[in-house]
């Protein structure tokens, strides 16, 4: 198990794959997995790598992602710790789930009536084209495990939703030596934003941030246009439509808004068969399972449209995600791979 973990992890880390530029990493993944001779691995029409094993009406999908946030980092492995972009989010979980699944396949026969798929999805750090392609295909897995870092004991049962809103504000123009004589689009944006920001005080666990702002020009002109993108994160239990409506009500009359991306929040029960299988597997690997709600958003929010029997799990310290200090140890990857392997076998046992 260790040598395949090391080879796959190191090769994927060396193949920098920021969102939108995953093809070389996907090819590398396919080439290495093919050398095992287990299952069938292909690249689908949107560029996801997909490893299939077995046939049957009971179908477990393990969905990791192969893209990373931008920002290449030096890659190293000293025999204990891997460092590099994506070591935590989420090449580590992808490698562990792949090797864990390959180990599980050794215990299964193609005739067991189960199908297991491991998908290395593209674009998760962007608009999730890889996950959305699975939704379009309307596939019907019985259960899904998302591969995201949660620590070897963390069972992720929920993620907040997100809404990205483009706000455009309009001013009058005029000479900026006399600002009182006109209306500034930038000031209208800021007025709106300061009002919108207050919504986080009214709703627990709701967060709002400005990710981008552009407006005005470097001349003595009262700004005629200003545009910004607001990132809203929505906890379970809060209605997205209500929040959008409240944001609209807080806008200046000189501003408009447009939703450019929307993902609903998700929270699942620990009673679900796939969550129970994961928890039992963690216990059987001598760890105490710890349920986690994530403040971010992941492909779990999207893929829950395929089945509500879904959970997220993966080795690696989630606090290092997207940082310049991404690292994960071979021990964590081995433990994570064993947990994935045992979860697959436990889930198939529960459902047999």
């Amino acid at each position, binding site marked *: 198990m260790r040598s395949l973990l090391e080879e796959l992890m190191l090769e994927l880390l060396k193949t920098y794959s920021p969102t939108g530029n995953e093809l070389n990493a996907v090819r590398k993944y396919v080439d290495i997995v093919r050398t095992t001779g287990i299952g069938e691995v292909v690249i689908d029409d949107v560029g996801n790598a997909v490893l299939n094993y077995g046939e049957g009406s009971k179908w477990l999908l393990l969905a990791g992602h192969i893209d990373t946030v931008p920002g290449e980092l030096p890659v190293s492995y000293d025999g204990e710790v891997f460092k590099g972009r994506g070591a935590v989010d989420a090449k580590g979980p992808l490698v562990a789930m792949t090797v864990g699944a390959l180990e599980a396949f050794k215990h299964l026969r193609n005739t067991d009536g189960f199908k297991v798929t491991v998908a290395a999805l593209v674009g998760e750090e962007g608009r999730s084209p890889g996950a959305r392609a699975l939704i379009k295909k309307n596939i019907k897995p019985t259960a899904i495990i998302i591969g995201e870092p949660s620590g070897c004991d963390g069972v992720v049962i929920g993620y907040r939703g997100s809404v990205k809103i483009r706000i455009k504000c309009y001013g009058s123009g005029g000479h900026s030596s006399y600002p009182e004589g006109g209306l500034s689009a930038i000031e209208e944006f800021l007025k709106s934003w300061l009002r919108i920001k207050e919504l986080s005080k009214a709703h627990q666990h709701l967060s709002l941030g400005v990710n981008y702002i552009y407006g005005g020009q470097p001349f003595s002109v009262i700004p005629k246009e200003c545009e910004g993108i607001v990132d809203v994160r929505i906890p379970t239990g809060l209605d997205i439509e209500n929040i959008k409506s409240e944001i609209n009500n807080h806008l200046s009359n000189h501003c408009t808004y447009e939703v450019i991306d929307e993902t609903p929040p998700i929270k699942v029960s*620990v009673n679900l068969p796939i969550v129970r299988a994961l928890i*039992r597997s963690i216990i059987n690997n001598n760890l105490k399972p710890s349920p*986690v709600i994530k403040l971010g958003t992941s492909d779990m929010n999207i893929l829950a449209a395929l089945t509500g029997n879904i959970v997220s799990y993966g080795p690696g310290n989630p*606090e290092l995600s997207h940082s310049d200090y991404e690292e994960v140890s071979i021990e964590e990857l081995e433990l994570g791979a064993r947990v994935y392997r045992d979860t697959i076998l436990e889930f198939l046992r529960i459902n047999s």
Partner: protein
Amino acid sequence: MIIKCPICGGDVEVPDDALPGELIDHECGITLEVVNEGGSIKLRPLEGVREDWGE
């Protein structure tokens, strides 16, 4: 097996093969943890759900 919920007193169905450390959401809204006390299976409220950021 059926065990009483330590919070509401209602029945909780616990799988016969449940392991200490397994979790169960009860209909009263509480999440319970399976524990082994002196050789018998009991339930206690889970101490809390962790929160962390990340995608």
